[in-house]
Structures are given as C-alpha cells and as structure tokens.
C-alpha cells in the first residue's frame, strides 16, 4: 500500500439534498488500493485558510474509470468551500489513509449501522461485503427521510436495508439503534459495523456487548496530518493486551476500532 497525493479531476459534484454532496474524482492510484473504512484527506482550497486538509470516508470506488467518491455534509467553512469546487476543476487528495474494516472469514450475517453522514464509509463496506457474498443488512438512520444516505447505491447492489427516522417520515420513527435492537434476535447477526454520532456508537457498543456480538466502529477526531505524524487525533482506547487505557491515533491506528476497545467520554 502506498499513500498518494493527487490533483484529482472532479467528474461529478452534486448536492443530493440540501447540504449533502456527492463528490467523485479521478484518482486511479487511490481507487486501486482503497479498502472499506479508509478515508481520503482533501485540501479544500489553494488558500492558506482554511489551512488543514479535511478527512472524508471513501463512499464508493469505480475501478473501471479509477474514480473515488466521497459523500459529505456541509457543516462548516471547510466543507462549504469544498462544495464550491466545480466539475472539471481539480481537488488535492491524499489517500488512501487509515486502516480498514476487517471481514472475518467466520462471519455469516453482518449488520451495518449508520447514522447521518456516518453511513458514507459503510456504503463502500456494504458493497465489498455483497461482492464477497456475505449476507448483510444495512440499517440507516437520519433525522428525516431526505437525509438518508446511500439508498440508491444499496438498491443497485441489491443489499437489504431498513431505515429509521427521528420524525418518522420514513421507516421506523426513532433511532437506528432501536432498529438494531429489534432486528438483532430475529436475524442473528454475528458481526456489527457502525459509524455515526457518538451517542449512537455508545448505544451500539452497549447492544453488541449485551448480545455478545463482536464488531467494529469507525471513529472521527480532528486531524492535521492524517498519517500518524502530528499525534493530534488521539482517542482513548483500552489496549487489549493489558487492559490499559492508552491514546490511539484515529488516522493510522483507526479510524476503525473494535467494539469495546474505544473508551467513550474520556
């Protein structure tokens, strides 16, 4: 694996629903290597402000054309400036970065739980799982139906999915973790993948542990370098070896961590 910096040509950039953007660019060297769970680190402007790159999970990869797609939400200045980039312009991409979701060979029925834009990196995972013929169900959560991410791709892949919305505008009215609780016995999942806001991850951890099901979470932390050099992205984890709490680097030790390993609220 080699990390690459590319000035990647943008071939598609559209606002799917207000503030949610899909950005596809040509980065063959990154596409070739990209594993589910990994992320790319984008420079949103040539200017010195905002200065730092912004990390985004890999949402999809098209090997044929060597493209990588990210799915992001405009939440601040950096993402706002990113959304100003036009098709046929280039974006400065560093990647693929981070570790990857593991796909245990013993796994039978996986469940993938995504909240908000947290679903983005899980769509690529679902695709890889489907391609490997692993039985997989995706549970999507959002505040309202319009903000459910990735359904079109999942449909195309023929991946089963269910949805929960806070306002009940589609699927279950409530949190996606309630959906998980309801399905977990019925479907006898034996592996859980999750990505979303911290309270969701805490709840997923709880459910997984109560049911004795292993799994993995994808975390976020503010990042500078993205390659393990600045030590800026520390997150507390319990070292399996000795049960000691230590700081892990989300960018290189993660972003994927085992359920139970992460020490939340610390």
């Amino acid at each position, binding site marked *: 694996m*080699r*990390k690459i*910096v590319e000035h990647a040509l943008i071939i598609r950039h559209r606002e799917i629903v207000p503030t949610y953007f899909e950005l596809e660019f040509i980065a063959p060297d990154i596409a070739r290597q990209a594993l589910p769970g990994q992320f790319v680190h984008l*420079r949103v402007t040539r200017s*010195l*402000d*905002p*200065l*730092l*790159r912004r990390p985004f999970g890999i949402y999809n990869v098209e090997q044929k054309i060597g493209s990588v797609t990210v799915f992001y939400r405009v939440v601040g200045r950096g993402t706002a400036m990113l959304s100003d980039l036009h098709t046929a312009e280039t974006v400065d991409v*560093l990647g693929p970065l981070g570790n990857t979701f593991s796909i245990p060979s013993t796994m039978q029925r996986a469940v993938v739980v995504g909240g908000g834009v947290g679903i983005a990196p899980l769509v690529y995972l679902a695709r890889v799982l489907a391609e490997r013929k692993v039985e997989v169900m995706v549970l999507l959560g959002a505040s309202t139906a319009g903000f459910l991410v990735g359904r079109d791709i999942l449909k195309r892949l023929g991946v089963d999915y269910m949805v929960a919305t806070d306002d009940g505008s589609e699927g279950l009215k409530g949190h996606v973790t309630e959906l998980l609780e309801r399905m977990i016995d019925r479907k006898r999942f034996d592996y859980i993948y999750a990505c979303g806001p911290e309270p969701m991850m805490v709840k997923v951890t709880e459910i997984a542990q109560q049911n004795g099901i292993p799994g993995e979470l994808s975390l976020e*932390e*503010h*990042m*500078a*370098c*993205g*390659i*393990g*050099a*600045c*030590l*800026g*992205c*520390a*997150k*507390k984890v319990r070292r399996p070896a000795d049960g000691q709490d*230590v*700081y892990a680097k989300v960018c290189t030790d993660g972003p994927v961590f085992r359920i139970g390993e992460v020490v939340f609220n*610390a």
Partner: protein
Amino acid sequence: MPDRKKKEKERPAVNLAVDLGGIPLRNPVTVASGTFGYGREYEEFVDLKRLGAVIVKGTTLEPRAGNPPPRIVETPAGMLNAIGLENPGVEAFVSEHLPYLAGRGVTIIANIAGDTVEEYAALAARLDGQPDLAGIEVNISCPNVKRGGMQFGTDPGMVREVVTAVRENTGKPLVVKLSPNVTDIVQMARVAVEAGADALSLINTLLGMAIDVEKQRPVLANVFGGLSGPAIKPVAVRMVYQVAREVDVPILGMGGIMSLGDVLEFLLAGATAVSVGTGNFVEPHLSQRLVGELESYLEARGIADVRELVGAAWGRNGR
C-alpha cells in the same frame, strides 16, 4: 541531445550545503520537531536523505501519554496544538527510531524536553554517546514543574541553567530552540549562546487558545495550545532578523513555511537553515519540493552558494 548535454554541463553547480553550528546539512531545508514524527511517517512522500536534516519528535526521559483530546484546532491560516509531548521516551528513541533512520542515511537531530533541569541534563547525557545523532535541539518551551510551571524559555536565568546543564553533558552540537513568548528575544538568544548553544532555533509556537462557542469552553482539553503555521510567519521572520544580527551562531528559522518564498524570507532575514513544520501536514512532500525549488532558484539567479542569501536583507538603504 548533444545540445542538451552541453547545457547540463554548463548548468552552474550551486552549493546548498550549510553548517548549523557544527552540524553539516546537505541543504538548508529541515523538518521541524513534532511535525514529522520519526521520519518514517513521511517516507512515502519524501526521500528523507535528501533533506538537510530530520528533527524528530520531542523526546522526554520517560514515556509520556500526552494530553487528552481535543489536542488540535484549526485557526485562521494556522493551528493550535496541545499534544503534550506524547512520546515513547528516550530509550525507545535510541533503540528503535534512531537506528532505523541512521540505516537510511538521514541526518538526524534529536529534540529534547524536560520538566526539570536534571531531566534535560540526563537526556543530553543519554544521547551524547549516539554516533548516529548529528546534533541535539533543546526545546525550552516546556513548563518548569519545579518552579510552578513557568516556561524555561521565558526566563533568562532558567535558559542559562538548562543550556549550561545540557552543555555539560554532551559534546554534540547543541541547537537551542527559543520560545517566542517573550518580551526580548535577543536577550534570550544571548543568554543561550553564552551558556553554550552552537546554534539557535526559532521560533517555537506562540501561546494561544480557541473557544468553542457552542460549548462555551476552551476547545483544547489543555485550554492553551501552541500556535503554528503561516499566521505566525511575520513574528518568526522578525525574531530571526532581530536575533541573527546580534548573535554569532547560526540560526535555524521556522514558523509558517509553506513555499519557496517563505524559505527565502527566512534566509534573507538571517537564518542559515530553515525547518518546515505545519506545512508538512498540508502537503506531505513540501520539504523535498522546497529543496528542489531552492536549488532551481539559485541556478536561475546565478547564485553560486546559498549562503550568499543569509542575512542579505540586512542594512540595505541604511536599514
């Protein structure tokens, strides 16, 4: 083809090598401590031995866990960090990182930090015998735990103590890295040189903070952090300019370097060499790119030796 060959032959050979207080650098572009890990992290982007030197992450006597997150926050044209000197301790540095880099032909400068004068002294002694180490950078921007947390680097008496102690414990070239959070940087520089510094490194980060307006509390768990990046360049260039005119040792200039123009600013201000810091995060191959650009610049301008640029902005027009 023959024409091309001729051209290449005629291309004047420029000298990029400089001497940083007894540390020979193949060129003036180094990478700043704490922004380049142990070099390894950047191997996919940079041919490490093409750099003037790699200054590795700050090392303490014992391993340190560092500060709780959040540790960094972006600011206008800059960033604040409060890493808290997370590092595996000097023994791990000596046994793992040093041999790895040395095996690759890299010019290595260690960076040491302590909470007490004794720790600095012990670190210097431990590193003294390492043949693979080109020099030691002494980071004095650390809180002195024995004296209520005031930074070593902000009190001339403490600067003298630390540098003297380190000097007594090593024959390695010593680069003392000054804190910019002082009224009179020239005074600090003079004291460091008197106490035995072979070179000075400036600047370290400016003390700053950011507040999370939503949560109504400081963003960094540590409250305060160090400001780095292009935002601080004007302060850094000013301090290099002031100090270089007043002391006789070479200066390693840094603070916000992002381009060849920035490198030239520091050299013209009086720095003998420079360090790329935060810029590595933005553009991982920046340091190596700058080596190449500096060489091309000298060739294009017909400047035979990079040392001709050092301090060239002084005293023109009666300034």
